[in-house]
């Protein structure tokens, strides 16, 4: 009888494609790390260098507004570094506190106030101006100990030398940066990175 015409040509089954797309999507969403607001926001100067910072074995020293913050990558390294710092300054941290610390961002408080900081909520912690910075003068050089102990911790955990990156605010005066560089050099760290933004246009 009547020949049945194809109603529409080119209808593809997209189910499989959709599945793949969403699988990939969920993968990227999960691996993407949410940008946590920094306790010390800095405006890094721009440069044309394209080298990226490593993801592991890295300690970042943030300098801005005369304050110094210290951040360490890797949970296990952080735990170990905190333990070493605790031993050095006679502060003991509970297991719960250690765990919270391992998940935290950069810290900028003297070690004696660290317990208090850990006890806070994340939103409170990153309030601007709350953290006074890590003491780094010659009388009470905790930054030096943080760096030193982190290096030990990193070698213990990852069996690699820790890389140090300095993330300075563009408007920060040079002596503040130099002081940190000197602390690094006192420990024979002569190679480190300066974190910079991308220079938008070639001047």
């Amino acid at each position: 009888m009547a020949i049945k015409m194809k109603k529409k040509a080119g209808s593809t089954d997209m189910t499989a494609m959709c599945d793949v797309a969403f699988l990939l999507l969920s993968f990227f969403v999960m691996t993407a790390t949410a940008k946590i607001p920094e306790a010390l926001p800095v405006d890094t100067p721009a440069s044309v260098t394209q080298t990226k910072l490593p993801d592991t074995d890295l300690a970042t020293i943030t300098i801005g507004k005369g304050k110094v913050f210290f951040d360490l990558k890797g949970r296990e390294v952080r735990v170990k570094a905190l333990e070493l710092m605790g031993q050095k300054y006679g502060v003991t941290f509970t297991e719960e506190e250690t765990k919270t610390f391992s998940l935290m961002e950069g810290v900028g408080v003297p070690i004696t106030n660290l317990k208090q900081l850990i006890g806070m909520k994340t939103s409170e912690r990153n309030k601007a101006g709350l953290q006074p910075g890590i003491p780094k003068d010659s009388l009470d050089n905790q930054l030096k100990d943080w760096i030193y102990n982190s290096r030990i911790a990193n070698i213990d955990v990852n069996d690699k030398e820790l890389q140090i990156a300095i993330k300075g605010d563009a408007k920060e005066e040079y002596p503040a940066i130099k002081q940190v560089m000197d602390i690094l050099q006192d420990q024979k760290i002569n190679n480190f990175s300066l974190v910079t933004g991308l220079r938008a246009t070639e001047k």
Partner: protein
Amino acid sequence: MAELNTGDGGGKKGGKVRSKKANSKVDLTAMVDLAFLLITFFMLTTTLSKPQSMSLGLPDKEDDKIKEKPIKVDENRTLTVMLGDNDKMVYYMGLLATPIAGPKEISYGKEGIRKELLKRKLSVVEYTGNKDKGLIVIIKPSKKSSYRNLVDILDEMNIVGVPSNAIVNDFSPEELKLLEDK
């Protein structure tokens, strides 16, 4: 394209009640579009958000001042850049007492220091006649200079490809005076 059939089949024909055909086909095109858009977004942002870094190597610092050996270099190869406050920069070539060029105030960027560096880079190689003995730039950031100035000048070193540069923190009184006067 796959589409969602919403029209109910029949019902007008009285008597027999036809069972509705199951509408299994949903138009997935828009959904797939959206999914891929998001994938692209996440892919790009995860890899691009990593901050850039500039590696900096400094010479060994000797605690004992007596052990420290001064490195002697040909003064005809050195260009000293002093960074002052308010993004000022003064440069001179050679020794300050008998400068080959300058001391002169110069600006950052392509039109300022870069031109000078490129010129000097070539002239020094010409002077030494040895490709391995190129220009040496001595960077002297003053106490009032900002971190941006330091990064800018180091970046300039990378752009120009200055063979060796050093960051020196000592200022002679003459140099300080020069910076203040400018």
